[in-house]
């Protein structure tokens, strides 16, 4: 192993350690509220994310391409976007902090899954060597991060609503209206990122293949997902969709995103396969 690669490996494990510590502290906070474990958890998550960003840039410089080639790179990088979306939500609404008990383990699982996946690098076809790759893929990652965080909040809203009366967990969370507002804000964010991802992909496809749209399986599912985000936004903003309805539809939006971003690219033959299976 090369010297920088060795330190990079150590740094990745340090990020995992920090995320694990943050997860533990967030879970402890649910049961020992007087001990201020949440502050520790917050600082661990923040430090972990900073280190995660450093690791991503460092690896980018070391291998000469961004975190979008192997399944390992994709999952490790996507987990950082989940943490980023969560920290942004908490920074805006500090009462959302207890949600870290759900979000941080999710990021940790994504990191672990990524590290266990194959990291074999392969030859990148000429049409994929374009600056548009960075623009297109990073907007896709931001879309996934935002919608995952929005759906996490929606799930908490639904779980919370199913409980009768006051519970200790209920007291930790902000008002349901606040959870809905933040999840709606995150849905808007993912809708915009998804739009920009599709626009960047269309411009790139036109440069590479001479067509901006090809009804490829990946493209079609991205459009379906984008349409679903738009539909939910319009149902909420124009037709006053109730909070519970919004939360349920957000879960469908996440399912559609998982199909579009993870299942279709790896499961179906398409022109995008050369990137996802390279």
């Amino acid at each position: 192993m090369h010297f920088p690669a060795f330190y990079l490996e150590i740094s990745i494990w340090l990020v995992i350690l920090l995320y694990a510590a943050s997860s533990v502290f967030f879970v402890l906070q649910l049961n020992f509220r007087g001990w201020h474990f949440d502050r520790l958890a917050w600082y661990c998550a923040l430090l972990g994310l900073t280190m995660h960003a450093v690791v991503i840039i460092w690896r980018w410089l070391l291998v000469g391409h961004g975190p979008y080639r192997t399944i390992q790179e994709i999952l490790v990088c996507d987990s950082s976007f989940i943490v980023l979306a969560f920290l942004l939500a908490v920074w805006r609404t500090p009462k959302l902090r207890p949600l870290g008990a759900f979000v941080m383990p999710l990021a940790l699982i994504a990191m672990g899954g990524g590290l266990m996946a194959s990291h074999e690098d392969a030859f990148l076809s000429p049409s994929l060597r374009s600056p548009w790759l960075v623009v297109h893929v990073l907007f896709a990652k931001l879309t996934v991060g935002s919608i995952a965080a929005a759906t996490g909040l929606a799930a908490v809203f639904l779980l919370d609503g199913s409980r009768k009366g006051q519970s200790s967990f209920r007291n930790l969370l902000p008002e349901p209206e606040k959870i809905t507002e933040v999840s709606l804000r995150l849905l808007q964010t993912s809708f915009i990122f998804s739009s920009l991802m599709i626009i960047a992909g269309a411009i790139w496809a036109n440069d590479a293949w001479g067509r901006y749209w090809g009804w490829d399986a990946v493209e079609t599912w991205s459009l379906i997902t984008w349409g679903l985000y738009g539909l939910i936004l319009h149902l909420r903003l124009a037709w006053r969709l109730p909070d519970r309805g919004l939360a349920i539809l957000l879960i469908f939006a996440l399912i559609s995103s998982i199909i579009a971003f993870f299942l279709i690219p790896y499961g179906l033959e398409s022109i995008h396969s050369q990137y996802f299976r390279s």
Partner: protein
Amino acid sequence: MRQLGSLKLTAGLITAFLLLFLLQWFWSAFPGWLYIPAVILFYGNLAVCLFIRLPTMYYNTGTKAGYVLFHGGLALVIAGALVTALFKWEGGFEICPGQSFIDSAPSYLWGKGPQLGQIAYSNQGFALEKVLLEHNPDGSIRKFACVTTDNSVAQHEKVIESNHPLPLGKGHVYLSNRHGRALKFKSFLPEGNSLEGTVHFSPDETVKSFKVPGLPYTLTAEFSDILQNNIRITGFPGHMLRKKHMTPGETIILGMVLLKYEEALPWVGLTMVRDPGKPFVYAGFIVFCIGLALFYIYKFANRIQK
């Protein structure tokens, strides 16, 4: 965190990227040591910006312009897609180094064209000559160079690379991912004349049947390695030939005919596209993004007013 969501930072970064792009430094800067942190900063800025500035309810008077432009952009994209569906013209052809391509010659095309579902010619009065190819290590084509003639006006050497199409006539020529080896055969007939034929192999094709030029025989050529020129020929009625390994320049006798395997040349697929709907779609993207930006500008202006 608020500084990371600053609109001034967004404007500064966009200006810097635009300036780099205009000064043609962008391509060399990508992916350099300065580009990576800059692009990550830009994405961080966008994420924070979007999150903190987007109003939850934006159906009010101040953002109506943004709302109208946002949806107007979408309508323009759909209109452009309709123009594309009705009037787009697309075709492809394969070419080897040293060969010429004249777009009025009946040497191609597939796909959609003025005569839907039929062989069509672009007939826009251009030619590609003196073709040169540069390869990647896996045999795919990195660069296509040729001398072009556009409407009888000779052009200098032109280059087509992946993601960099060449504008020609009313359309663009793209380097497609299709490539491989073209095996050239020559039949020397008993009458003294000779006939030529070519078999095109793609990297995923190892076996291909072909008709011997000038004879009603079908042979099967087997390419064990696309980067090697050696082939294995099988077939021929009457069991005169079962299997034969051949290198370029070798000959075999098939009945009264001498068949020569002349050479194996690389070939590349080019795609020609003319899409009148594209400008509408791109205009739609721009209007869509302006509409989106107006939501934020309104929010920003409101904050300044307060």
